[in-house]
């Protein structure tokens, strides 16, 4: 098997690997780096549980090869907390019961951070529209929207 070298930064740490090119980013994160906070919900690019931030933008890590990300800066849910304290967006999910089984939560939090970055004081309609790529099988959307509303507000303060 021919391997391809890749160097990237994950949660602030430089990582290097020689990978089978078909290794998806999500599998590299989970299996090579043991960062199991990023989940595989559907593996068909629909559910958004695998959402991570690459160079500042949320993407689905099940739909990109790790070798494509040479030189990239990747943030997973493990890299969101600040100095051991929950990030205000994570704290808002805890406070507003924004999770039930928790499976979709890592992707929801990463998207929440992106929504807060792009919209000042986002409306409920905006948040629901922006979450089109994230599915919650517990159907807990109502509290997820409330959490992102509160998280965005806390981040703006």
């Amino acid at each position, binding site marked *: 098997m021919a391997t391809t070298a890749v160097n990237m930064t994950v949660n602030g740490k430089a990582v290097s690997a020689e990978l089978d090119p078909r290794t998806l980013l999500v599998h590299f994160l989970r299996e090579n780096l043991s960062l199991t906070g990023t989940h595989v919900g559907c593996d068909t690019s629909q559910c958004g549980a695998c959402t991570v931030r690459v160079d500042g933008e949320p993407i689905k890590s099940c*739909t990109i*090869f790790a070798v*494509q990300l040479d030189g990239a800066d990747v943030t997973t849910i493990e890299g969101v907390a600040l100095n051991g304290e929950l990030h205000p967006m994570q704290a808002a999910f805890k406070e507003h019961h924004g999770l039930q089984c928790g499976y979709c939560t890592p992707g929801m939090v990463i998207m929440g951070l992106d929504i807060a970055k792009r919209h000042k004081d986002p409306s409920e309609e905006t948040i629901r529209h922006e979450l089109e*790529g994230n599915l919650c099988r517990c159907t807990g959307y109502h509290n997820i929207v409330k959490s992102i509303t509160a998280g965005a507000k806390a981040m703006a303060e």
Partner: protein
Amino acid sequence: MYEFTYNRAASVDEAADLLRKSTEASLLAGGMSLIPTMKLRLSSPPELVDLNGLSELGGIKVDGDTLTIGAMTRHAVVGASPEVASAIPALTALAGGIGDVQVRNRGTIGGSICFNDPAADYPAGLVGLDATVHTSQRSIPADEFFLPLFETALNSDEIVSSVSFPVPEKAGWSKFANLASRFAIVSVMVSVRGTSVRVAVAGAKDCVFRVAEMEQALAGDFSPDAIAGIGVASDNLNSDQHADAEYRSHLITVVAKRAVAACG
């Protein structure tokens, strides 16, 4: 997924060379269609040529009354571009409604038109706006670029570099989307430029198509009512679990009227 060899192309010329050396090689743009089909083993290219990182394929510019978008420009960038919004707001609406946020952050205009999914949004956008596809070898009018069932007019070693759109006097986009995938069940781009009116429909057949009867009616009276009585027969329309052919036939008139109304 089957094994493949991965190449990062350093230039369009190098990518074209790789395509000539390996006839089964596939270009990798945003990967939003290709990677899912590889995961399902519907496609199994032995070699991938990654175009990400080729800055010569990026960029949006307006020159006179022509808007040009580089092939590797992502949907999110088109959707957020002030140049696009001021030249062709209907294209802003189209790009902002493809898939979801994460997909728009990766998917590209070049990748979308080369994959030519019959339910994708850009093929209707290009045909409805009378665009031209520029490649490493020539320029191809959108009317001649898209062929049925995921085929295009491209040669095997030809690479799309950009798409140019003549700025219309007005244009409107409307999509009746599948709520899960956001792919079109029926989508329509309408535009007016001088005496030319275009109505392009996607999602309904094996390829984007124009509706001449609607175009003629709108040339005489540009209003939703002018096409209210014009339909596309259900023969040869797609029929699947999301919508049968009869329903798609009904939707074409409804969505076309909405696209005309969206022209403002």
